């Protein structure tokens, strides 16, 4: 069982849900060996079509919210996420292949900055909704580099030095 998990966080991101629900994307995912598609659709109004996944096609299921998506992320083989930093880092920590889809409808779209920077560093792929199919079809998810663990030591060191505490 290989699960593709799609998450839009607390927002509504119909453009992403719509594009993963297209026949083209679902077929491509199935061809790549994925068997299940689970969509966390948030406040969106677009309802994807459920499918049990018989006779050679992807099983599709969805839910709106859950208190924690940690289990969904853990069981997933591929994560397609909105550009929220929370879901991005949660996925990267779990070392799951990640495609971030940037919501172009957001007013202050500083979120894309982070996704683009991490994409430039090859930790994830970054796409606009209409480009998602191309990314899935053309990119090799094995090319992604693991994200290095967080390191708060430099800040702690500077703060200690500023306050006159010894660093040990």
């Amino acid at each position: 069982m290989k699960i593709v998990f799609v998450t839009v966080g607390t927002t509504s991101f119909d453009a992403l849900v719509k594009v993963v629900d297209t026949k083209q994307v679902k077929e491509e995912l199935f061809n790549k060996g994925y068997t299940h598609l689970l969509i966390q659709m948030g406040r969106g109004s677009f309802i994807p079509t459920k499918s049990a996944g018989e006779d050679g096609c992807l099983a599709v299921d969805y839910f709106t919210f859950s208190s924690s998506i940690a289990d969904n992320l853990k069981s997933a083989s591929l994560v397609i996420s909105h550009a929220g930093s929370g879901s991005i880092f949660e996925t990267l920590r779990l070392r799951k292949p990640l495609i971030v889809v940037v919501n172009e409808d957001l007013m202050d779209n500083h979120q894309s900055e982070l996704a683009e920077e991490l994409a430039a560093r090859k930790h994830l792929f970054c796409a606009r909704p209409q480009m998602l199919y191309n990314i899935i079809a053309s990119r090799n998810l094995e090319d992604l580099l693991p994200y290095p663990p967080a390191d708060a030591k430099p800040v702690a060191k500077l703060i200690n030095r500023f306050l006159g505490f010894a660093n040990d």
Partner: protein
Amino acid sequence: MGQPVHGLSWVRTAIALKTKEGVAITGIVITGLGLCLCNDWQGYEFQSSRYSVGHLNRYLLLYVANTWMYGICLFTTSCSRDLVTLHGTMIAGLGHPMELDSGNYLSMALTPIFIVTFIVIATISILIRIIYVISRSSKPLKRVAHEPLSTLIVLGSGGHTAEMLNLLSELQKDKFVPRIYIAASTDNMSLQKAQALETSLVDQILCNGPGTCIPLCIIAFFFKVVGIRWSSIFYVESIARVRKLSLSGLLLYKLQMADQFFVQWPQLEKKYPQAHYVGCLM
């Protein structure tokens, strides 16, 4: 030239300088320095004996400021005819300052020249104080006793909080006590926050982005200027900001309110040279 109007020896020394403008300027400069110095003792020593020194300094500060203001006003009104005629229209009907009882502070305090001088001196003193606080803020604390520091931690929404917790896990717990947490909420809680800050009077504030930290930082800065409490402000820009600072970050950076400003991407350090690049906290 009028007679010395005040028993304090510094008035006599000032008169000995003969030039009234010179005296006025010297007075203003010394007022500013006095304010700065007064608070510096506080900045250096309040850590070791928390409240007694702080209170003493506050009284000293008020005393110094008041003495200088009264002194300078009395001096300028009594010995400078030119300055008085300059404001002649303003004091018309109030009687010439020369006729006033030079020892009577109350009647002096009612003359416009007093009010004008008071406002000028107060404004200049406050400006000097603000400039001093800004320049002093970015420099490391010089502390004799390495006692623990009370810390206010401003938590924001999900992502911000995770970054802050990563940072906290790296700080030595025994040196940052007590720790007071403030969780950002969507509604406006500025007043409660001010109360929290006032009742706790922390030595330092750690914040990383939620807009709600701005009022706290402004209050802390105000406390620094007034001399109530010297608290260091550390600001860590969120990892989500790669090319541009967030609004709260930009505000703190431009107003130079944060003692130390940290960013998590090298691009930002290039763009904002006073920020320190510290790598990723997530």
